[in-house]
């Protein structure tokens, strides 16, 4: 059922989130906040080399140390064939995952795990790690994606033969796969171009930067079951991946979803969780493991470094006639970068007749890349939107006007297949152009940039139960870890359907034994897909309430409507019954009332965003200050506008960090030089202005309240928006991120010299 979006009582308001008080008082329990009696502390031995053959690992001294209760190495893990495990938005190869969790044969990057210990204290565990004797044969390494693609590059995997070519090569390389997608005839299209530009761009690996390091407590029991407490974006994913890696049944592992201290895609797989279970089994005691910040940087999954070529042709009146892109993404040590999504998303804000995108997925000696908020799209958009900005300059056309001429709309066929239904791409551009920010004045050394971006959003599997209690209050039971206020959205939708006060609804994120599988919190899917499940379950409750009331009233259920939180007879003069009235009698009228829904949601409406960024560039130091920033996005219907705005603001700021400061910095030995927050510089409060938001609400017809995912699209435009603003301020086009003051100053000096 759909609702009249102009007449909602709760959806669209800004109540306090159900888990809010626990989170401002320190009560909320995150991954590392849990302990068990008799628990051991587990730690991981990590590779000090970028690429090396493991000649031997001698753990005898570590095992002999008093207080050490378990030691495991790669050989203790079971062998698993290549198999893709679907985790919702992305698929994970469990063979590769097993080798990433504990290396066998070779270590493939600085920080690669190769042994783990569990001991009675953290200090003893550290001592035990130091007693493990590993003999390495250090091998040549490769970090840069373009270097890794060269024929003479050190090869990481002897069994990697490039997929996706007409003929599979007979020699192994670091190119895991090639992909291509397209529309029309690109060569023909370019023949009609008045202006063609061709540019190359590079970005560095950046980390999601969640403040909570990974943490787990696992307790393996003698009956073969395991209890696992951890924070993740998907506790069902943790369960299923651990079961596969350890050869256990999914039902034997019960994962309790701790509160999660940020993820942004980075907590959609496992690292230490299977190690904790395996060592708990060996030791017969619970094992707690917590990553240090350095471990998070060295050995989890940042988004990859990329190298990209873009060629776009336009006519003099601003119509794009052809676009041709090549995106090369490093995946880290194992195949599986988000290059596919980049290919699908990069050009998608535009209606194109002729387009081609070629992508390469490339391995190198860096940690295995993971998902990061709209994985791949920010990189692709950085390249495309930088080129679009340059084209607008060449055409002497307003950059919004240029984008509007070419913007995707209802009926546009996207490069990745679908034909768009109702989308807000043009609405967003119009709202951006009309914003006071866009018309405001700039001073000396100041500039303004805009950029657009697109993200698919996903649906997926969700299920929920709505339990009605005898006193007329309600608990929603769902299975999507709440990373940014989704409990509030669920409570609001349930209260809206039931017609009761928001405060009468509580929301529980249930563990893997207490509710059926839910896909993880990723792909901006929770308020959309889990929101549909909760809405359906609440509607199921309403039907049962009507049925019970009809029986009480002695009329047909068709003659009872649910309005303003009560059952009202449309025939006869029966007195209306509130939810509380009906709930109080439930035990005598058929038992407690429970609504349920299980869905695989389709039709997640895509999101389009355009950002405006003003910068000031200090000509003496190269320091770039963000003066003003506005985000405009098609958000569908905002259930809780504060948390929608928060997604837009947070995504914009992550993008500003990506553009200006953040990078994985490897030395010549291939070792990560900056695995800490001091040297991996994320934006702090004093770096930023307020981030203005404009919510363009183009309802998604596939959701009862019009919801579109909103979480990921805000990270797509900022990289190019910042760089386009720098160009406007200085006349210098920066094509490699991050634009640090050092790089900026060098570019300004070169620009001045060239002008003289």
């Amino acid at each position: 059922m759909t609702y009249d979006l102009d007449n909602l009582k709760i959806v669209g308001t800004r109540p306090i989130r159900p888990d809010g008080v626990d989170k401002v008082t320190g009560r909320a329990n995150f991954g590392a906040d849990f302990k068990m009696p008799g628990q051991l502390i587990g730690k991981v031995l990590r590779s000090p080399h970028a690429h090396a053959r493991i000649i031997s690992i001698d753990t005898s001294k570590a095992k002999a140390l008093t207080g050490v209760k378990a030691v495991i190495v790669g050989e203790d893990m079971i062998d698993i064939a290549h198999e893709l495990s679907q985790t919702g938005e992305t698929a994970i190869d469990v063979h590769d995952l097993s080798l990433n969790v504990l290396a066998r044969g070779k270590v493939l990057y600085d920080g690669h795990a190769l042994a783990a210990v569990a001991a009675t204290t953290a200090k003893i565990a550290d001592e035990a790690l130091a007693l493990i004797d590993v003999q390495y044969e250090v091998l040549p390494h490769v970090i840069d994606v373009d270097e890794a693609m060269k024929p003479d590059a050190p090869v990481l995997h002897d069994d990697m033969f490039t997929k996706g070519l007409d003929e599979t090569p007979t020699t192994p390389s670091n190119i895991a796969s090639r992909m291509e997608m397209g529309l029309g005839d690109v060569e023909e299209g370019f023949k009609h171009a008045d202006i063609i530009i061709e540019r190359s761009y590079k970005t560095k690996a950046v980390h999601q930067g969640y403040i909570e390091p990974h943490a787990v407590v696992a307790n393996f029991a003698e009956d073969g079951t395991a209890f696992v407490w951890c924070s993740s974006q998907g506790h069902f994913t943790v369960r299923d991946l651990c079961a596969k890696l350890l050869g256990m049944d999914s039902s034997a592992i019960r994962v309790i979803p701790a509160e999660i201290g940020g993820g942004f895609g980075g907590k959609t797989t496992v690292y230490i969780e299977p190690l904790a279970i395996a060592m708990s089994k060996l030791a017969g005691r619970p094992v707690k493991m917590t990553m240090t910040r350095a471990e998070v940087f060295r050995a989890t999954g940042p988004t990859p470094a990329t190298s990209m070529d873009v060629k776009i042709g336009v006519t003099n009146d601003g119509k794009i006639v052809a676009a041709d892109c090549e995106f090369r993404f490093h995946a880290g040590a194992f195949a599986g970068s988000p290059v596919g999504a980049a290919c699908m998303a990069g050009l998608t804000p535009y209606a194109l007749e002729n387009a081609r995108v070629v992508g390469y997925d490339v391995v190198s000696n860096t940690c295995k890349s993971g998902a990061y908020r709209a994985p791949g799209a920010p990189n692709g958009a950085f390249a495309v939107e930088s080129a679009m900005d340059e084209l607008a300059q060449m055409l002497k056309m307003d950059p919004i006007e240029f984008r509007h001429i070419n913007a995707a709309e209802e009926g546009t066929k996207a490069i990745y297949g679908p034909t768009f239904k109702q989308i807000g791409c043009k609405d967003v551009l119009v709202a951006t152009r009309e914003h006071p920010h866009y018309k405001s004045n700039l001073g000396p050394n100041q500039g303004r940039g805009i950029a657009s971006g697109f993200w698919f959003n996903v649906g997926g599997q969700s299920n929920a139960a709505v339990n009605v209690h005898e006193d007329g209050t309600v608990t929603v039971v769902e299975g999507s870890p709440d990373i940014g206020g989704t409990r509030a959205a669920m409570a609001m939708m349930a209260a809206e359907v039931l017609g009761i006060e928001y405060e009468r609804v509580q929301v529980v994120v249930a563990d893997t034994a207490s509710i059926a599988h839910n896909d993880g919190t990723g792909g901006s899917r929770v308020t959309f897909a889990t929101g549909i499940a909760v809405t359906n379950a609440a509607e199921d409750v309403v039907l049962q309430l009507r049925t019970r009331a009809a029986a009480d009233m002695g009329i047909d259920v068709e003659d009872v409507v649910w309005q303003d939180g009560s059952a009202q007879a449309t025939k006869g003069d029966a007195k209306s019954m509130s939810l509380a009235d009906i709930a109080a009698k439930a035990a005598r009228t058929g038992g407690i009332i429970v609504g349920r829904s299980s869905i695989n949601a389709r039709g997640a409406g895509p999101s389009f965003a355009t950002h405006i960024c003003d910068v000031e560039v200090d000509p003496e130091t190269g320091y770039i200050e963000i003066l003003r920033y506005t985000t405009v996005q098609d958000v569908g219907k905002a259930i809780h506008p504060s948390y929608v705005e928060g997604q837009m603001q947070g995504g914009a700021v992550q993008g500003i960090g990506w553009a200006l400061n953040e990078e994985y910095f490897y030395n010549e030995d291939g070792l990560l030089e900056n695995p800490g927050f001091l040297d991996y510089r994320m934006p702090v409060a004093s770096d930023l202005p307020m981030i203005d938001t404009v919510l363009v609400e183009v309802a998604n017809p596939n959701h009862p309240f019009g919801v579109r995912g909103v979480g990921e699209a805000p990270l797509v435009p900022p990289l190019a928006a910042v760089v386009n603003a720098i160009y406007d301020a200085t006349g210098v086009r920066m094509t490699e991120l991050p634009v640090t003051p050092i790089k900026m100053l060098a570019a300004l000096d070169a620009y001045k010299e060239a002008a003289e």
Partner: protein
Amino acid sequence: MAKIHVTTTINGDPAEFLCEPHETLLDILRDELQLTGSKEGCASGDCGACSVMLDGRLVCSCLVLGAEVQGSEVETVENIAQGDKLHPVQQRILEHGALQCGYCTPGIVVAAKALLDRNNDPSETEIRYWLAGNLCRCTGYDKIIGAVMDAAADMRGEAS
């Protein structure tokens, strides 16, 4: 090496504990005293998630040794709400939706209260620089700054 015996005051109550010389105040709070409201994000003083008050000064508890707090007064996030009444900073953070994952929030609450206790009329810039030691990766800081400004107005007794 023998453990060190430390007598101190935590959140107004007497407390004592034994600690190893290398253990930090954050380790002690979380692992010995079960006060897990203070979070570890970096253990290097860069993120501020472990912010506490030590003898009236805002510190990162990961940069203070447990043994150092002998005879001191420590106040943690657990002591900021009084009974069932939230501090204005906490209340305004909730009203603004100035948290997403909530992991940095305890540190932000402690740090913002420390600011407002010494200056109840800070400018936006002053708040931004005061909180520059508290990383938040979710919110982009906008709503946090707004919440602290409103909390300051509350503490000045101004209606909003």
